[in-house]
């Protein structure tokens, strides 16, 4: 049975008819064609699909679109300023070479944004623990950790 879902994504109201079982990530990628949010594992382990729902980082492969009815969703496409200027966390990833193939990157950034709000000056260990739910196969995490520490400082506890 198709159902209608409505929510706000990156500040814009959107709605579509989807199947009840349609995952939020499928809705974002296929219905909205926002393909920056990736699917790496289907089992909520890799974190490539991380988006924000009502300000909190969630894995969009682990809820169905209906569960986001009325929610405020932020994806990687909505993080930079309207003029294209990178958010300080994105800029930190670039500055510190915190990405290689780029596939896990949107999830890493979305997770880091949530983490940094409550950790304006994190230690290396705190950052590593915050990445428990995000896998990267390219960087060995070394530069992701550096990026998040720098990004969090630049954010100063603000979104």
């Amino acid at each position, binding site marked *: 049975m198709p159902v209608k879902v409505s929510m706000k994504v990156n500040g814009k109201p959107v709605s579509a008819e989807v199947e009840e079982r349609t995952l939020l990530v499928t809705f974002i990628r296929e219905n909205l064609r926002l393909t*920056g*949010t990736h699917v790496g594992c289907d089992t909520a382990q*890799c974190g490539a699909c991380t988006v924000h729902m009502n300000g909190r980082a969630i894995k969009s492969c682990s809820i169905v679109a209906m569960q986001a009815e009325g929610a405020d969703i932020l994806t990687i496409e909505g993080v930079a300023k309207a003029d294209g200027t990178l958010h300080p966390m994105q800029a930190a990833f670039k500055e510190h*070479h915190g990405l290689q*193939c780029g*596939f896990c990157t949107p999830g890493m950034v979305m997770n880091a944004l949530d983490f940094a709000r409550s950790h304006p000056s994190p230690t290396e260990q705190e950052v590593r623990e915050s990445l428990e739910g995000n896998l990267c*196969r390219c960087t060995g995490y070394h530069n992701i950790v550096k990026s998040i520490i720098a990004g969090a400082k630049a954010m100063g506890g603000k979104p």
Partner: protein
Amino acid sequence: MTASLIGARVLRKEDYRFLTGAGQYTDDVALPHQTYAAFVRSPHAHAVLKKINIEKAKKAKGVIAVYVGADLANAKVNGLPCGWLITDVKGQPMKEPPYPALAQGKVRHVGERVAVVIAETQEQARDAAELVKVDYQELPAVVDTKSAASSKPIHDIAPDNICYVWGLGEKAKVDEAFKGAAHVTKLDFVNNRLIPNAIEPRAANAVYSRADESYTLYVASQNPHVERLLMTAFVLGLPESKVRVVAPDVGGGFGSKIYLYPEDVVVTWAAKQLNRAVKWTAERSESFLSDAHGRDHVTTAELALDKDGKFLALRVRTTANMGAYLSTFASCIPTILYATLLAGQYTTPLIYCEVTAVFTNTAPVDAYRGAGRPEATYVVERLVETAAREMKIDPAEIRRRNFIRQFPYQTPVALQYDTGNYEATLAAALELSDQKNFDKRKAESLRRGKLRGLGYACYIEACGIAPSNVAGSLGARAGLFEAGEIRVHPTGTVTVFTGSHAHGQGHETTFAQVVADRLGLAMEQVEIVHGDTSKVLFGMGTYGSRSIAVGGTAIVKALDKIVAKGKKIAAHLMEAAEADIEYDKGVFKVAGTDKKKAFGEVAFAAYVPHNYPLDKLEPGLNENAFYDPTNFTFPAGSYVCEVEVDRDTGATEVVAFTAVDDFGRIINPMIVEGQVHGGLTQGIGQALTEGCKYDAEGQLSTGSFGDYCIPRATDVPSFKLDTRETPCTHNPLGVKGCGEAGAIGAPAAVMNAITDALGVKDVAMPATANTVWKHLREKSHARV
């Protein structure tokens, strides 16, 4: 532009699109009116396919077609070829069983494709795939590498399950040297089977055009031209001109995306049958089951030494698992890329290696980051460290006594090293790791109930594969050159087309640095294009750390032609002799005068040839080059690992890791460091956390990220890195390649550290807490 871009820490051009969600990976490609494919996969490791009933699936909602192996056979679609022919010790060719894209008659590993269902939506395709009913007659599964050769046959043409028995070196002389040795160190070990797990799952999306009878395949591939060559010439019997392969942004490869896979063949073939685009994207469980795996060696290795610890001879016997079918480069990994590296950094004069490659009812095994060289390094460096301990010689000192110091150096296993300085990297690694204070740290660890261990690994690798004639004489069925094209536009901007492919390596930045530096242009004026057979003239792709050494050199060769032609044009424009024209930082000058023309002016003249030597010179400024290397490159380095083992639980932590590498000239140190970090982490993963396991029935027990543990951020430390530089002698950039080093050197360093901490001769990889704890218990270290 004054400062050189070579060696500069230039931020990456590709990052903006990845950081803003604008990357275009294969699954992001949506073709008009596309359909979706789902594969029915065998739940059995070995079985006869008695009957496949597709009727229910065909009638399911949204289903457009269902195909089985017989459909491909009837359409004369051939099986997948192997790209490297190994000749065995008796001079006979290896056994090459058919590798059909969809199973025919039998299935030979869990996850093998039995049928494909194509439907209007992905959900419909997956739902209908569950309605395909297959009657299997189960057969006993052959899973164990060691006993495969004495098990029932998997393929008719290989009655003993042996693909080949291959040897390198002079066995009789090696055996003789062992008789006279003062000391022999022997180790039996398994190089554990790994599953690559790039975070982007494989994907393919193919479309057929009736207008010009051509196909376009978007695919997550490390080498689109080779994929096209194999698919057209060997499998589908099509002219290459009718197939375009595009590998857009690719989310990591590590070897697993080098190969032609059955899914790519099926969607391409089906696109024509249906006259619609057919898209398939792997679920992670499909990646675990059907991506080519890596390693899986069982080895006995012996090192003969004289009384002073000089290496006299090395004797290695390895059984290598090929899996159920020969993947694209499977056969050359445990032979050409393994045995040839067994000299390591040492003057060992006599080496013999014998490799038995076996078929089993498991997924195909092929190159995974390092490909043969991690296995070789593991053999050499575990033996060397163990020999040092047995002979009570400092492990660093025993290495020094045996280092190669004269170059070029001809090893007894075919390779000739052009240059290196192993003493320099070792000395730097000892210094950077503060090795002299290790004992203090060890005592401090012990006070916290932790056993601290120190391990070294001095690796060498052969990269920049390869001189095509050498590769050909060793069985390669393809050339291994690289192609590059420089297209200078009328306004003086440049598009560079390279046959190398980037899937994380940052070529759009590194290659642009080379071009911008050579031509004296700004980075913004140089655009790198790769990954599309309709744009790039040819390519052999990216693997074996070959991109900068081979692909980069092809670009330099093309640049030289651009400058040479530019000089001719400039000479005409300035009414000077061509011999008097110099090119420097974007400006053509007449030597000894103040006459000059900017690069852009010359480019403009080439495309608007009003004042131009048309009688002698073609207009335009566009050059290409093919570069075939004269030798491999030989990156090398020294790694020092420190671990802490918890005496109660066996949990092992890498607490410090130092890597000093010699990659020759470095174009972008930031990118090189990133490559090393990633490689080290995969190497630490092999040593500590990653191990692919099949049970006795051939079921994959490690089929998700919950069961197969790729390192998480808390599993690795921050790394201490440095480099030493001996430029490669046979390419103009002096570069060697850096992509695999970390994965090659790290496992031996970690395991040397763990065995040191535990005071045992060997520990199996992966050294999980459980494995280590068992050793602790045996040694009565554990307080239980």
